């Protein structure tokens, strides 16, 4: 998507070159692709229209045509405006003193309120706060049990009133209870409700009136389509939301709902849920989100994730091994394991620029590859791992049997390992500059290499990327010096 956007922009401006000034019709034509991209990312129709109009105006005021790369500049304008619209970043929870801080959760059925309550509790407990969860969903069967179990899992306190059928009363009692026991935060989980259900919306208002929450969060499924604006608007009008939490963000949804919801409510998007575990709650980053909606990938997240996961010392050891050509299958397995710690291969690939729209290609990446490789390598003897060359047809058969794979899989793995080891040896022998050139050559046009080379140097995300690269280069330089 990102690539096709850039190409489209460049096409339109190429046609114009030599014909003098940029005019509204030209820019509008080039915006057609942006419109489709946004709609396909589920940004609401009206929001898209307004957004595109604004972009046209901004683009007319800038010297887009003067720029060497008008396409990139247009993308930058679109990206920056989107960041502005979705920002500013505000991942804060505001606590009151004296406590307890009352937080109310609301949302449609199945948006992920109860799971988010657990995640939020875990997040807030980091500051040594005592968190109490209370279940005001008396609608859905076993919803109270669910929250009780969740509270137990994250180590939060839990409050329920046996036999009470009125959620407003439960909420009020919970706050009173919280006050008397001195907890710092009380989180009120409410039943999922449709924004068109008058009775249930009234009930939500009543819960809010009875408990006076300091903050009310709307939990919104990142996969929501055009209707996101309708529900968010209604919830905001009834409850005066303080923020939005996007759930299920670990899916491959482009998440245009984020833009829609922010545009109609004006309320900040605070967090996003990014996994099944309770610590999978992250601050919302408008710039990364903009990149994702435009299919530009999320390099910053990728690099951060990599830095979190990879052990620097370990990496240096590996580098040295590679340089000497001593990289074995055991090391290879270690590397693969570290890779998978970052998440499923597919979701890592998705964060790479230019990969966002390549659904078919992403589909072809099988998540079980790594598991299979691991099984194969584990079925080898130590000698075989150090010297894969010794694996003949008999050994191959034995390894395949041991790992539940086919002999072809074993030889496939050995072959790609040998190729990789050779490539690494080559790269390790190069100077920094050569290595950069080599890496760039490896990356597809417009891919990671092109981004880092400064095609869009002014976009926030890639500036950070630039810094990270520099830091990495410095490390590599140091390492080189040490070797000398």
């Amino acid at each position: 998507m990102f690539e096709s956007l850039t190409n489209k922009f460049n096409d339109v401006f190429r046609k114009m070159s030599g014909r003098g000034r940029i005019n509204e019709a030209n820019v509008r034509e080039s915006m057609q692709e942006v419109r489709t991209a946004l709609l396909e990312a589920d940004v609401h129709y009206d929001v898209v229209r307004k957004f595109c109009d604004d972009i046209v105006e901004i683009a007319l005021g800038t010297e887009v045509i003067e720029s060497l790369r008008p396409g990139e500049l247009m993308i930058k304008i679109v990206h920056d405006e989107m960041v502005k619209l979705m920002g500013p970043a505000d991942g804060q929870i505001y606590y009151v003193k004296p406590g307890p801080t009352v937080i109310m959760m609301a949302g449609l059925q199945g948006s992920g309120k109860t799971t988010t309550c657990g995640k939020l509790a875990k997040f807030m407990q980091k500051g040594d706060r005592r968190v109490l969860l209370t279940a005001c969903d008396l609608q859905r069967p076993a919803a109270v049990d669910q929250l009780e179990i969740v509270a137990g899992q994250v180590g939060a306190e839990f409050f329920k009133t046996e036999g009470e059928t009125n959620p407003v009363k439960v909420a009020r009692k919970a706050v009173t209870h919280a006050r008397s026991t001195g907890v710092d935060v009380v989180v009120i989980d409410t039943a999922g409700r449709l924004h068109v259900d008058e009775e249930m919306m009234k009930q939500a208002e009543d819960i809010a009136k009875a408990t006076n929450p300091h903050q009310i969060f709307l939990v919104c499924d990142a996969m929501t389509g055009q209707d996101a604006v309708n529900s968010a608007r209604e919830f905001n009008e009834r409850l005066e939301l303080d923020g939005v939490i996007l759930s299920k963000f670990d899916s491959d949804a482009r998440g245009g709902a984020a833009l829609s919801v922010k545009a109609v409510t004006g309320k900040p998007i605070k967090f996003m849920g990014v996994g099944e575990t309770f610590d999978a709650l992250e601050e919302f980053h408008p710039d990364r989100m903009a990149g994702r909606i435009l299919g530009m990938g999320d390099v910053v997240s990728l690099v951060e994730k990599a830095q979190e996961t990879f052990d620097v010392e370990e990496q240096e050891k590996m580098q040295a091994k590679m340089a000497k050509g001593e990289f074995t299958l055991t090391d290879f397995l270690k590397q693969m394991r570290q890779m998978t710690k970052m998440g499923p291969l597919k979701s890592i690939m998705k964060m790479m620029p230019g990969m966002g729209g390549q659904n078919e290609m992403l589909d072809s990446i099988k998540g079980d590859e790594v598991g299979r490789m691991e099984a194969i390598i584990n079925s080898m003897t130590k000698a075989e791992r150090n010297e894969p060359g010794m694996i003949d047809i008999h050994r191959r058969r034995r390894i395949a049997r041991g790992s539940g794979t086919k002999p072809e899989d074993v030889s496939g793995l050995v072959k790609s390992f040998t190729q990789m080891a050779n490539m690494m040896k080559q790269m390790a022998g190069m100077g920094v500059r050569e290595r950069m050139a080599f890496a760039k050559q490896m990356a597809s046009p417009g891919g990671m290499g092109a981004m880092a080379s400064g095609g869009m140097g002014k976009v926030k995300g890639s500036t950070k990327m630039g810094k990270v690269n520099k830091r990495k280069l410095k490390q590599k330089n140091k390492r080189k010096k040490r070797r000398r």
Partner: protein
Amino acid sequence: MSLFSRAIQKISTGLSRTRQRFLGGLGSLLTGRKVDAELLDELEATLIQADLGVHSAVKICDDLRAAAKDGRIAKGEEVIDFLKNELKTYWPESDRSISYAESGPTVILVAGINGAGKTTSIAKLAYQFHSEGKRVLLAACDTFRAAAQEQLTIWANRIGCEIITGSEKADPAAVAFDAVSAAKARDVDVLLIDTAGRLHTQDHLMRELTKIRDVVRKQLPAAPHEVLLVLDATTGQNAINQAKAFLAAIEATGIFLAKLDGSAKGGIVVAIRNEVNLPVKFIGLGEGYDDVEPFDPETFVEALFA
């Protein structure tokens, strides 16, 4: 008897509400107007806002444009019938029905992403079969989410059907295995298998689903006879990816479109039909176990513009 009259009442009020909204929405959009570029633009906007996606919306509007050009339609009022006819061909009668086992239990595997509405939808189907006089067995294979099995058990008690559960964090495939054995032994008519919600991007969880299907199939070669993907009607374009993934993992046979009682139109099923050819079988319209209807393309088209 009282249940019966309640159902009739529900349907008629539901329909009249649809009708009113329909006349209010599309009526004012189409009545007394020529089918021209302006009207087609507005229609395209309406379709996109109903989550049909750019591609499907443009395709339908192109068809309309062509029809207007060679005189098949001229007046705004004719647009709706044209659309009804067009969309009816998307969902022929045949693929809206349930395929039952020739003999022995009919097994229906139900899957979907987190929060789509699987458990409630299963309760609705169970109630439907139960009230047709069939013997129904539920299998609670969501051993992952807290209190998911309790949730289904409560439904089973309310409806009055049998249920098989497993211990917490048990292998869902093992629970499915037990359920199929029980279904065969107890001679039940329909076995409904509930599974944990999973994002279609989680490969290991999708493989777990394939395993459940394989375990079922091993015990009963023609099973599962239906594999339903529960889809939240508020879902946007990502539903296409969901449909693709569940089709690949367990060969889904149809969609249960849940939560259609909100303001979302569920137009994504048109795009899904276009791209992956998966039909819609049922729609869910509320939180009660009787809030279910077979999918009807005509009402669906009317509701798109309501």
